[in-house]
Structures are given as structure tokens and as C-alpha cells.
């Protein structure tokens, strides 16, 4: 009788052990793999961070010998003589006012994207270089011209200068680059020489118009690009080509002439949810008197269409003016204009750090509050 409880005890222990070691819990099926957090990146940031597959590259033993890297796919190249015979290339060269050092064959390369089963040299890595060039000069320009632009706006503005969509616009509508569409049969029937296709932008399409009004999006491979990216890469590659031909100084001029001369509406990018509060906080951090709104002039208060003009003051300083059909509207507008005057501050005669007679920049202290 004495032994009985002991035996039972022993059995219980072994059961516990068994249960512990062999998990039959279906929990692992229930817990799904967490998805990678989506990171928002602007298209110019993506273009700056392209990584090559190691399978595409012939890497030297000493990986820092950057001169010895080779692309495995490169076997063919359109020669300079052949490139001279393509009318589209000659026209584009003349239209962009490129220097004689800029070879026509480089222009052909700039219009050739990385494609499947393509043995010709392509613009993939030239675009990567051109992208860093473009984003640096744009950032430098913006940071010098608007030293107080918040970083979010700075990035948005950079993207609207050198992002895929705006460069697409530059390439297609300003420079008039055409893409190589149409079947081989059509080209044969129109008796177009085979060489002429090198004068157009060539890329693997992500979407294709099967017939009028029907677009097929399902074509996707590693090399396929959207139209915007392909066009933008051609612009980036041309920028890299200018660098190779004429050096950095000329590239900077080229970027200022063709990209930074475009009109980007930066003031409209600033949106304030509570301008009054924001302004009060800003003045507090700058040790200025709190904002007061004063009526400057008004007309037709009793009418159906009154107009009020108010000023936003800190002490005796007029920070901004606003007008509206109600006092409230005018007040809010005056706060917004005061805030915009602060964030869009422009130094007189800004000089960028890459200029010759450069003077130290005004460096802002950063957004003092969120």
C-alpha cells in the first residue's frame, strides 16, 4: 500500500515531461510572418540606392579596385561611326547643345536601358551616377536658397525637381526623346534601317497597350521598368555622360540649365493644420512677443461680400498680412503668411558651396518643435 502513491506520482511526472518536449501546438501556423515595414522612399532616393546583383558583375579579387569591375552582359557596343548615322541621335545632341566631347555613342548608351537578353552596353549604372549628381546639386541649391525648409518639404521639393515623373517630363516633352515602340514587322514594312532603333529609348516595359484602350500590366521581370523610370534614367545617364565628357563644372551648368530652371511651387507644399498655434509656439521659442491680430482695413461689413485685411503682429513688427471675406479667414491667412515668410526665408544673393566665390552659409537651427 505504501508504494502506490509513489508510482502514481512518477507517472504524472513522465506525462508532464512528454507534453513539454513534444509541442503539438498549431500556434506556429496561426502566427503569420510579420511583413517588412513599408518604407516610403521618394523616387530619387530609390534611384540613388540601386544595388547590382553580384551575378551581373565580374568582381576583381581586391574589391576596392573599382577600375577592374566589369559587367558580364556587355559584349556589343554601337560604334561612334554607326551612331553618327542615326538622325535621332544627331538631333538630340544638337538640341541639348552638348559639346563635341560628348560622343554620339554615349548618347546611344544613355537611351538603352538594362534589358533581358541584351548584349549592348546600357545606361543602368550611368543613371546611378547621374542620380547622385542630380540629387546633390538640387539639395545644395535648395538648402542654400531656402535654409529653413523643413526636411520633409526639402525632400518633396527635391523629388519634384529630380524625381522620376519630372525627369520623365523633361525627357519626353522638353527634350523630345521617343521610345522604341512598334513591332519588328511594322519597322520592316516601313523600311526603317535596323540601326535607327538605337536612336530611341529602349526598355523592357512593365505595362503594354495590347490594343487601343486595353493596357496589360502583368508583364514584370527583373529588368522591366515603368515608362517614367525608363525616361528618367535616360536623363540621369545623359547627366553622367556630360560629366564624363566635360567634367563637373559643365555638369553643374547643365543641371541648372535643364532641371533647376524648371518652376517648382515650393510655397504650396507647406500646409499648416493650426497656423495660429504654430505661430504662437514659434514666436515663443524665438523669444518674441506673442502674436496679435489687428484689423488694417475693411469694407462692406454689412454687405453680402465683405472684405477684411488684417495683420499679424508681434509687438510692433508686422509678420504677415491676410485678407478674407470673414475676420476668421483673414486671421488664419495672416498667420499662414507669417509662417510662410519664416519657413521660406531666402538669404540675399545665395551662393552654393560649389560656387567659386563661396561664403559660409546660413545654417538654420532645425525645426525647434514638431
Amino acid at each position, binding site marked *: 500500500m505504501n508504494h502506490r502513491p509513489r508510482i502514481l506520482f512518477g507517472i504524472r511526472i513522465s506525462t508532464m515531461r512528454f507534453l513539454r518536449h513534444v509541442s503539438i501546438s498549431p500556434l506556429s501556423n496561426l502566427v503569420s510572418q510579420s511583413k517588412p515595414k513599408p518604407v516610403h522612399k521618394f523616387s530619387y532616393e530609390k534611384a540613388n540606392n540601386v544595388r547590382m546583383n553580384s551575378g551581373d558583375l565580374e568582381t576583381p579579387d581586391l574589391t576596392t*579596385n573599382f577600375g577592374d569591375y566589369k559587367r558580364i552582359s556587355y559584349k556589343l557596343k554601337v560604334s561612334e561611326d554607326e551612331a553618327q548615322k542615326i538622325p535621332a541621335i544627331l538631333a538630340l545632341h544638337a538640341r541639348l547643345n552638348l559639346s563635341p566631347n560628348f560622343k554620339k555613342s554615349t548618347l546611344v548608351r544613355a537611351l538603352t536601358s538594362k534589358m533581358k537578353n541584351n548584349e549592348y552596353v546600357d545606361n543602368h549604372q*550611368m543613371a*546611378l*551616377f547621374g542620380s547622385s549628381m542630380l*540629387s546633390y546639386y538640387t539639395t*545644395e541649391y535648395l538648402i542654400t536658397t531656402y535654409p529653413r525648409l523643413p526636411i520633409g518639404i*526639402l525632400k518633396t521639393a527635391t523629388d519634384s525637381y529630380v524625381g522620376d515623373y519630372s525627369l520623365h517630363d523633361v525627357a519626353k516633352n522638353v527634350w523630345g526623346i521617343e521610345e522604341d515602340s512598334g513591332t519588328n514587322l511594322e519597322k520592316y514594312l516601313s523600311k526603317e534601317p535596323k540601326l535607327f532603333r538605337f536612336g530611341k529609348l529602349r526598355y523592357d516595359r512593365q505595362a503594354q497597350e495590347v490594343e487601343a484602350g486595353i493596357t496589360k500590366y502583368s508583364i514584370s521581370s527583373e529588368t522591366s521598368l515603368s515608362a517614367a523610370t525608363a525616361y528618367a534614367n535616360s536623363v540621369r545617364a545623359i547627366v553622367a555622360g556630360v560629366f564624363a565628357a566635360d567634367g563637373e563644372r559643365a555638369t553643374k551648368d547643365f543641371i541648372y540649365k535643364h532641371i533647376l530652371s524648371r518652376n517648382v511651387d515650393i510655397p504650396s507644399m507647406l500646409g499648416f493644420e493650426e497656423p495660429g498655434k504654430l505661430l504662437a509656439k514659434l514666436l515663443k521659442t524665438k523669444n518674441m512677443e506673442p502674436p496679435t491680430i489687428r484689423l488694417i482695413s475693411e469694407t462692406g461689413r454689412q454687405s453680402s461680400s465683405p472684405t477684411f485685411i488684417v495683420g499679424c503682429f508681434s509687438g510692433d513688427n508686422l509678420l504677415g498680412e491676410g485678407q478674407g471675406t470673414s475676420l476668421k479667414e483673414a486671421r488664419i491667412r495672416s498667420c499662414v503668411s507669417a509662417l510662410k515668410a519664416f519657413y521660406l526665408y531666402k538669404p540675399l544673393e545665395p551662393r552654393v*558651396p560649389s560656387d567659386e566665390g*563661396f561664403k559660409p552659409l546660413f545654417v538654420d537651427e532645425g525645426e525647434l518643435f514638431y
Partner: protein
Amino acid sequence: MRSRPWPPHDPEVFNALSTKIFRSALELDKWWWKAQYYEPLSELKKVYINWENQGNSTLHRRKLDGTHHTRMTKAMHSISGSLLRLGARNQRQLCVNGAQVTAKRGVVFAKGPRVRGAIRDPEDIFTVKGIRYGLTEENLKPLKTFLQSKLQGKYELPDKLLLQIITHKSFAHGTQPYNARLSYFGRELIQLSAAKYAITRSTNNEYAINNLNFDSLGSYTQGLMKTDRLLKEYAVANNLDAVFFRRLALPSGREDENYKPKAIWSTLTASLVGAIASQHGKKAAEEFIEKELFGDVFKQILPATKAASESA
């Protein structure tokens, strides 16, 4: 706001503090926040009693009752390792309805471990590992000696900018000048320099354009030249982080010596580059990058074998 005189100019506030009857807890809360800028708690207590007499709950007693400070003090003394700082015990002569009232108010700040409901010492956020934020010679010394050692002080920077370089956005809720924009600018320049460095190496590649070989761009090793990791390693190797103002990972201030997240530490180097570019121009900054960043530190972080770099 704190310097506003009593009685308040705003008659609405004055009425509320002396006579107003609150209809809801929310309303009281709103007025509490409005009224806390005014000194006499006794006045506020009147309001509270007024409010409580209406049959409301005692939900807000702790906030309004002046005695809770002393109770809290006792509570906080009982917590081991907590330091208390008694501050701003001020006396003020006031004139309410013609009568002289002397209001006393003691504010107790909690230091060390967090106490629910207690006000944290504002000094806390300005101190990182015992170093007080400020434009002092001691704080700037590590960075200053570093810059003086490079090219006989060619890259010297103004003091204010130096302090901005060693202040991360996370420090003191971003209220002090920080390095985010400088490091953004610096990063762009580092990226461009890395690309230029790679393509200008001597080459005999037949597809090079004007002796510039673009084929190495986007490779693992070339990508490494502009990573946060390189920038962080450079900052650590040169002891740029000896004084570095940022938010500590734990409120207790205890932090592992090796805990140096590259996203934060890389801003030190990047903003230094950005600051050099903004004060001495692009050319000087590029020299600095090529000589310093792409030198020894870069070789140290390279993987030992080619196979390792390809698989990564």
C-alpha cells in the same frame, strides 16, 4: 505665460477661478489647465469646493488639493534611488477683491525612476550621462581637438555649429538646435563623392567612357562607402561621440557601452561633413571625405574575402 499678473486681465478666467460652477469633469479640466498658470491654489480650491458641492465626483481632488504635494513627497522618498528636488518655492503678494492674499506654492520635481503623476525635473532632459547641455568649452573640446588635428585646423568651425553637430534630433524633444539638416546635406555629398571616387579609379575597361568605368557602381563594396555603418565607425574611431547629446534609450540613463545605433551615430559624421561643406565649400568637404572616410576606416569594415562580399 507664467509671468502674467494676478488678477488675470482676462475677466473670463478671473470669474471662472472665483465663481464658476463647472458642469462636467471635462470643463473643469480645461479650466484647470488654463488656470494653472496663475499662482494661488487657494483660489482654485474655492472653485473646486464650489464644484464639489454641486454633487460631482471627487475625481479631480488629487489635482486640485494642495496637500497632495506633501503626500507625494512622502511616497517618493519611499522609492529607493529617487532624488527629489524642491524648487520654485515662491511667495507672492496678491490682491484679490481688495484683500491681500499671500500664496505659497511648492513644486516637487521627481528625479530618477519615474513616478506616476509627478513632474519630472526639467534639468533631466538637458543632461546626458552627467554632461549638461550648453555652449561650453568642455562640451566642444573633443570635436575641436579633432578638427585642429586635421590639416592644421583647415576645417575649423564656429562653436555654435560644433554644438549643433553633436546634438541629435532626439535630444530634449528637439528643442535645441540639432544636426538633421546638416547630416542630410552631408549624406548627399558623401554619396556623390563615393560615386565619383569609384568611377575615377584608373581602368582599362573597354566600355569605359573617357576612362571612367561606371561598372563598379551599385556593387556591394561601392555601396559600403555611403552606408550608415561606415559613418558610425568613423565617428566611434575618432571619438567624436565623447560628448553626444541624444535621447538615452532608457529613462533611467543606464545604457550599454556598446549600444550605438548606426542611424543615430552616423549623423555625427554626416553632419560634420555637411558643416564643413557649408562653411568651407564643397571642395574642402570632398577632400575631407576622400582622405578621412575612404581611408583606413573604410578598409577596416571591408569583409575579409571576396566571397563574403558577394554573398552579402
